[in-house]
């Protein structure tokens, strides 16, 4: 238990009272073995967490906003996402490519990794839990419109749903459509509208009254 010398504005901190599970023990054992055999040091593991923590959806949002206001950048982003990221100072720490999928009046893109949890971590950070769990992974390719409806997103029947299953060396990022009424917003203001979920493709970017649905 922690001492109560502060006013209570947080929910009680849960202290796990169960013994660690099989996979938790396995993870600890492998981690300690790697350290004992000097394959990966604890310092390197901590540093890798720092690398992961430095990546957030704000990076992806910057890319999207820049693509909305700068047609030349948009063209480069769609041609080779990784090169365009590097131009913005966003490095790639893994040997993957980034393909940016543009939503249009005719195509709505949705990304998933049915095999595991491939995700454009360099520009979005860690994926949300639902992205890694079996229901989303299996249903996104089986009934994408039903999945989208559960996120509050209805896509017209005359718009193609294009589901990209990320299985190998490409990571995908959705370039959402720029919402109406944002014509005179700055790049920074636009970036603030762009959410993680919009760049996965489960919702559009909303603005103003559209936001409340």
């Amino acid at each position, binding site marked *: 238990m922690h001492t109560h010398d502060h006013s209570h504005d947080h929910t009680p901190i849960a202290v796990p009272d169960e013994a660690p599970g099989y996979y938790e023990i396995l993870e600890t054992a492998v981690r300690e073995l790697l350290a004992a055999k000097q394959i990966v040091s604890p310092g390197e593991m901590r540093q890798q967490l720092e690398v992961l923590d430095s990546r957030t959806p704000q990076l992806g949002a910057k890319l999207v906003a820049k693509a909305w206001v700068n047609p030349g950048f948009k063209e480069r982003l769609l041609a080779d996402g990784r090169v365009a990221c590097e131009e913005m100072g966003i490095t790639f720490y893994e040997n993957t*490519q980034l393909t940016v999928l543009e939503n249009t009046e005719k195509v709505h893109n949705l990304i998933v990794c049915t095999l595991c949890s491939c995700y454009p971590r360099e520009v979005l950070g860690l994926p949300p839990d639902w992205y890694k769990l079996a229901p989303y992974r299996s249903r996104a*390719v*089986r*009934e*994408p419109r039903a999945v989208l409806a559960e996120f509050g997103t209805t896509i017209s029947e005359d718009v*193609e749903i294009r589901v990209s*299953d990320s299985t190998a060396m490409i990571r995908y990022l959705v370039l959402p459509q720029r919402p109406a009424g944002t014509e005179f917003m700055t790049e920074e203001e636009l970036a603030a509208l762009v959410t993680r979920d919009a760049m996965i493709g489960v919702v559009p970017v909303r603005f103003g009254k559209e936001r409340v649905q």
Partner: protein
Amino acid sequence: MALNPSNILPGLVKAEGEDPLFGHGDRVLISDRSPIGHYRVPHYVRGKAAVVKDVIARAVDNEEEGFGRNAGLRRHYYRVSIPLSALWHGYAGAPNDELRIEVFEDWLKRT
């Protein structure tokens, strides 16, 4: 990356796998084999007909690499499309809805 054929000096002979076997619009069949272990081609697309949309790149074979064998950049990855209505019996969405997925060359056969 796909090479520009006009950049190649006359008289050079290319090795197998230097050029992609398939190009945009080619109709292919994804192999239906079931090797033991972790493979990058999900079961739900094995044995399905697809259309090549993009040649992604010449790349290591991730599946071989997963078993500790790296034979270099011998073959290409492709982005292929399959209509969702062809994947799932009684698919309830729109007829144009489709899947895009990356498949390594040795899983594809021309049809």
